[in-house]
């Protein structure tokens, strides 16, 4: 059986790049009284601290796809105190989006999703700053954007975007998270470079055409996947994430998730090659 690469505790954190603000030699200011009060219930958690809250405040997260997954993910990240959200989506808000894409309302119909979401997030959260990217991101744009953020989250609804991010994050040695769902099927992932990827999973095969458009969307599943993304994102930003790649798979019959690890394929053209290159560099 193939061997799974395991990282020591803390190694995953070391793989995350230093927060973007620290790369410029900036020192964060302490929380204001207003911020202390606003985040007081989170600050009361036994393992929370002002230092943690400051780290989130000075974090920058790129969310690609502001739909059924992206809306709740952005909403909870902003509520947790992530200071800067970059929101990317080229689609417009449609009537059929409203039951599960919780940042939108009737008056947003026809508006760009990233821009409509940013407006709502900034109304609801006084401390978040949103940057909007109202387009489907091309590979060249992603190559420019990825080094500028502390974390990228895939909430897209299409295979092409997911595979593109999978390839770029491997090539650029970035840990990343994402999720996918259609009808009652869905899963989320945490992927560190060189330990297995979406290509190893088989995500590159032709999938059923249409996705949610033809098979429907189950809002409670999207919400649960988004919660997993937020929880893992906070762990990554606070350098507490597991060092091993993970897949959380929804089993509708049992209404539960099963957590799996990845078996890295050394011959994978995406993460296997990347891993070899990393060895060569050393």
């Amino acid at each position, binding site marked *: *059986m*193939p061997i*799974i690469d395991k990282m020591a505790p803390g190694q995953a954190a070391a793989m995350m790049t230093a927060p973007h603000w620290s790369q410029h030699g900036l020192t964060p200011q302490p929380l204001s009284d207003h911020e202390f009060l606003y985040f007081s219930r989170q600050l009361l958690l036994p393992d929370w601290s002002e230092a943690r809250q400051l780290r989130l405040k000075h974090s920058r997260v790129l969310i690609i*796809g502001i*739909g*059924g*997954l*992206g809306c709740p993910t952005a909403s909870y990240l902003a509520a947790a105190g992530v200071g800067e959200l970059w929101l990317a989506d080229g689609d417009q808000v449609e009537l059929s989006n409203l039951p599960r894409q919780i940042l939108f309302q009737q008056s947003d119909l026809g508006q760009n999703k990233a821009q409509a979401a940013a407006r709502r997030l900034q109304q609801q959260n006084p401390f978040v700053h949103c940057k909007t990217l109202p387009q489907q991101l091309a590979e060249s744009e992603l190559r420019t954007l990825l080094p500028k953020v502390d974390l990228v989250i895939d*909430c*897209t*609804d*299409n*295979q092409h975007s*997911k595979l593109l991010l999978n390839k770029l994050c491997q090539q650029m040695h970035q840990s990343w998270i994402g*999720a*996918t*769902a*259609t*009808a009652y*099927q*869905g*899963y989320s992932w945490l992927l560190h470079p060189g330990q*297995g990827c979406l290509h*190893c*999973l*088989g*995500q590159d*095969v*032709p*999938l*059923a055409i249409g*996705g*949610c458009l033809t*098979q429907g*969307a189950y809002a409670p599943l*999207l919400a649960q996947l988004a919660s997993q993304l937020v929880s893992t994102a906070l762990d990554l930003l606070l350098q507490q994430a597991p060092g091993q790649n993970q*897949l959380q*798979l929804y*089993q509708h*019959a*049992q209404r539960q998730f*099963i*957590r*799996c*690890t*990845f*078996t890295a*394929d050394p*011959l*994978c053209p995406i993460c296997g090659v990347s891993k070899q290159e990393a060895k060569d560099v050393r």
Partner: protein
Amino acid sequence: MSVESTIAIFLNTVETLLPADMTVAALVQAEAADQPVAVALNQQVLPKRLWASTKLQRQDQVLLFQLVAGG
């Protein structure tokens, strides 16, 4: 099929009897031929390239699931 020639595994958490020498590839062919699926064996995602060479063992826990792209 004699008792000796079968093994019991858990397929998507349901106990299932299979031929003793069945590979993951044969199981996928029997359960989801030509469908976009992935396999996790004992809570580890198993790359497709290894399906044909991986024989199922007694009490294995196999998750066979649809690959999807939506959000």
